[in-house]
């Protein structure tokens, strides 16, 4: 376990005992990851912000039931995944058109790089967001949790409530599609 992971677990333990300041620290440490997850899952920055907010509120309310069987990060991803899946279900039910990425809240790149590289990254980011929206929800979630959050398949299974084989199939399909998309789009390293 890394130092950062240890610190996060300690903050979670304090927060579980009602320490709101520790929870704020925990939230600060995990906010980026949760927002990035909800953003890639929805492709909508406003929805991503709302879902991240709902995730942390639900986490605070349910900290008492967090038994520490999994890492607090996995537990937060599970909450975010459930919130996002519910959101996507509702969106599918009530919207007759695909969600359009919100333009009001733009992601910001913090790295000091040359403008051409930044532009390229911006294009890649948009392309990845578009690509992820083409994936079926479960494949998108498997890709998000495996590739971006680096969870094991077993952890993803626990998070999504899916069987190990199903998770592997979903992830493999997502990777196959990404490879095909990259070849068709002429991505270069």
């Amino acid at each position, binding site marked *: 376990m890394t130092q950062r992971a240890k610190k996060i677990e300690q903050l979670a333990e304090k927060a579980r005992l009602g320490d709101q300041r520790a929870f704020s620290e925990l939230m600060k440490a995990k906010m*980026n990851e949760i927002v990035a997850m909800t953003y890639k899952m929805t492709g909508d920055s406003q929805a991503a912000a709302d879902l991240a907010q709902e995730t942390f509120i639900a986490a605070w309310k349910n900290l008492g039931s967090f038994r520490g069987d999994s890492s607090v990060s996995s537990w937060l991803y599970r909450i975010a995944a459930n919130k996002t899946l519910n959101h996507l279900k509702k969106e599918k039910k009530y919207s007759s058109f695909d969600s359009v990425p919100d333009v009001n809240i733009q992601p910001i790149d913090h790295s000091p790089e040359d403008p051409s590289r930044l532009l390229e990254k911006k294009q890649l980011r948009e392309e990845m967001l578009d690509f992820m929206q083409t994936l079926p929800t479960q494949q998108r979630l498997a890709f998000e949790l495996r590739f971006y959050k680096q969870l094991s398949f077993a952890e993803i299974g626990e998070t999504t409530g899916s069987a190990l084989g199903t998770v*592997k199939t979903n992830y493999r399909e997502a990777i196959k599609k990404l490879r095909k998309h990259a070849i068709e789009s002429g991505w270069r390293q």
Partner: protein
Amino acid sequence: MRCERVQEELMLNIGVEALSPEVLEHVGQCAECRAVKDDLDRVLPNALSDQAFSLSDQVLREIQEKVEKSIAPQRIFSVQRALAIAASVVLVVGVSYVGFRSGGIDDPFNLPPDSSADTFVQTFDWLESDADSPSMDALFESVDSDPYRSSYDLLLEEITDEELEYLENNLSAGELL
């Protein structure tokens, strides 16, 4: 290892976990599997990292502030409760003071002047003041002197024998009592 198995391992683990020595050995010998690995090595970095999908610091701060506001209901509730209690106390004290000033507080029942309670008090006063009527003390004394004497005993003392015989012949025992 078979190519199918190796390619599955490549897809499941590249970019996340270290590849097993068996897979690496196979890739070193198999052009088809090596092509798959090279493809994935080239494609996956283009998927970027989480950091690339983060929102601005300002948005993140706003989310955090909203959550902090939302998870602190205890403090807000306590302040609200304290205010509600203070308002209730002020209301009760105010109403009591107004009632006291208007004189309503002296008569807790605030009965109208012609109520039956007033009539009873007036009757009592009249009995006390009337010279021909027995005094209230005497009345209470006569009742208290023989608490076991029933209304039936009193009736027997006053009634004539003929009247008693008539009643006994014409009334049932229950009616008579």
